[in-house]
């Protein structure tokens, strides 16, 4: 599948196996300000504004009205509005119900399609690979390059297939699958690879769940992660505002059906996991690879032979304020964050609501929907009422506490049960401690005040 999409987008060959790759979709957020600025100073224009799409997500607060915290962040949002207006790029700004997290709105609007190349100046762009798109994150210079030329110089990565087979147990979902994968191959395991996720477990997932899996490919080191399109994919796309329609739909469908890897396709690396071995998972350290089943204990650096690994584990535990041997389910939390481009879609909110229903949050717990439209859809189902009655805060769409750049952060020493994608030191605020987990597990932590095996709550 990767090879088919790649071959279809090669504009020219360069030295050393580099090719000039055509880009079908370019998604933008406030972070593109520097690239727009350089483009303007070079007196260059956006080559294909009709293939560029922008939304404000990183720098807005998620309190009512989606304000900004200060003049600097307000400046970032205003600059995006100005640049996109100048260049006639479709922009979902404050007040537009279509506004939301860039990796949520691409699929939601029908921009994300099988077989296309899609880039964004954000490392979680692999999210769109869930549709069988070749999607990857780029830096600011590459953003400028795509704006100016609609192409990128790229070297073909190696390929890796990760197959997950079997039925997931109760309380186990897509987030647990990807955390288990990252723990298996390591935070650098996918460097210079494009991953294809396959197997019956992945096939059985909804699009929302597949996006959760592909989203965290970068946490395993891979710039791109993808899943072959199938009936689930087509059903999701059909009827979306910017998706192919009318006579274009059957033509698109015919092409998409030819995309999946051929049965004899060879990958540079193959990894297999059994769904039955995956439990509800939480992270204990400061790298996404530091993940264990909730039934485990905080690991002991003394038991590790490699001195480098031992030292980095000890450092992580010191930052996290955890003692080796402590049962993970004894770890108390101060706050809960349910949101981010990893877990802010309707399926995620439903899973959290099932746990929250009829219970009561004992620590501050935020629900941040991925887009204005998801917020509306959730409200139409009454999810907001369930959350509010359970003492959760129901907020506006945005990146919020995942990125630590908009003013929504945890305090130093605070421990957060979070559905986001990174538990790096300082990611959710200077000195803040992050435990990554699924929406159901985060909701369970909210109602008990500690890391909790959602399976023990019943109902």
């Amino acid at each position, binding site marked *: 599948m990767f090879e088919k999409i790649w071959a279809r987008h090669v504009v020219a060959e360069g030295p050393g196996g580099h090719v000039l790759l*055509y880009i079908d979709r370019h998604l933008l957020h406030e972070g593109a300000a520097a690239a727009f600025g350089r483009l303007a100073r070079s007196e*260059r224009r956006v080559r294909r504004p009709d293939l560029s799409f922008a939304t404000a997500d990183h720098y807005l607060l998620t309190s009512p009205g989606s304000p900004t915290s200060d003049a*600097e962040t307000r400046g970032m949002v205003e600059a995006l509005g100005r640049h996109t207006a100048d260049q006639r790029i479709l922009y979902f700004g404050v007040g537009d119900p279509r506004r939301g997290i860039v990796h949520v709105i691409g699929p939601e609007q029908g921009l994300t399609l099988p077989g296309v190349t899609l880039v964004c100046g954000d490392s979680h762009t692999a999210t769109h690979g869930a549709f069988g798109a070749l999607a990857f994150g*780029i830096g600011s*210079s590459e953003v400028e390059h795509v704006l100016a030329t609609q192409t990128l110089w790229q070297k073909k990565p190696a390929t890796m297939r990760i197959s997950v087979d079997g039925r997931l147990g109760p309380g186990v979902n897509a987030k647990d699958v990807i955390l288990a994968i990252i723990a298996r191959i390591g935070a*650098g395991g996918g*460097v210079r690879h494009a991953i294809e996720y396959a197997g019956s477990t992945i096939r059985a997932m909804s699009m929302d769940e597949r996006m959760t899996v592909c989203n965290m490919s970068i946490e395993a080191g891979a710039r791109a992660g993808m899943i072959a399109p199938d009936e689930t994919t087509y059903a999701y796309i059909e009827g979306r505002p910017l998706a192919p329609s009318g006579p*274009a739909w059957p033509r698109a469908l015919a092409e998409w059906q030819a995309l999946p890897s051929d049965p004899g396709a060879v990958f540079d690396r193959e990894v297999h996991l059994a769904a039955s071995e995956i439990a509800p998972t939480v992270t204990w350290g400061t790298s996404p690879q530091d993940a264990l089943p909730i039934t485990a204990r905080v690991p002991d650096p003394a038991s590790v032979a490699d001195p480098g690994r031992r030292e980095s584990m000890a450092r992580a535990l010191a930052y996290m304020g955890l003692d080796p041997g402590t049962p993970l389910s004894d770890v108390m939390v101060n706050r809960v964050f349910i949101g981010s481009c990893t877990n802010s879609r309707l399926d995620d909110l439903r899973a959290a609501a099932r746990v929250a229903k009829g219970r009561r949050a004992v620590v501050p717990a935020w629900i941040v929907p991925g887009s204005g439209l998801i917020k509306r859809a959730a409200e139409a189902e009454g999810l907001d009422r369930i959350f509010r009655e359970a003492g959760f805060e129901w907020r506006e769409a945005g990146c919020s506490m995942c990125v630590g750049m908009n003013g929504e952060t945890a305090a130093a020493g605070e421990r957060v049960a979070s559905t986001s994608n990174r538990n790096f030191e300082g990611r959710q605020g200077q000195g803040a401690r992050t435990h990554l987990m699924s929406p159901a597990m985060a909701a369970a932590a909210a109602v008990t005040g500690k890391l909790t095996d959602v399976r023990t709550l019943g109902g």
Partner: protein
Amino acid sequence: MEPFTRLTAVGLPIDLPNVDTDRVIPARFLRKDRSVPEYSRFLFHDVRFNADGSERPEFILNQAPYRGARIVVAAENFGCGSSREAAVWALAANGFRSVIAPSLGDIFHQNCFKNGLLPVILPAETAAGLRRRLHDRPGATLTVDLATQTVTAPDGAEHRFEVDAFGKEMLLTGRDEIGLTLGFEATIAEFEARHAREMAWAVPPRAGT
């Protein structure tokens, strides 16, 4: 872009694996323009400085022999995580021109090439050996030569490395990559016209703004 040819400079050993770009430059500084005078202080800010702005003496970059370092010698997966090019900008603002490691985060790796920094991938044992020598003799220098694709260790040992031919060419010449690509305009336009016919379904309808 400033070309990269050959550099002899003090090496800064960083032993921690998986150093993420949030650590290299915390997210709250991404709103800052690169031209602000304090930009160089954002590099490794939260592990380099105390809350009152004073230096943490235990952080390696604050130790006298390493102050003029221009080459990072790192461990596995340095620069992983966020795509923020500011991680490279902050290194450049402190004079760094090359990062040597067993592996680098893919996006960080690309971002280096775009800013005149040479990324060098060496086997894990070789990189670990270099870091050991730099710890043994703080302030020791390395030489990185792009044309010959060699790193010369403080003890004189030479290590050959592979580098993408495209990136090498761009670094040696310091060429403007967008300018280069715009030279392909006719080829891009021809491809684009054919692509729009063959994948007409992929051209989104123009939505109201």
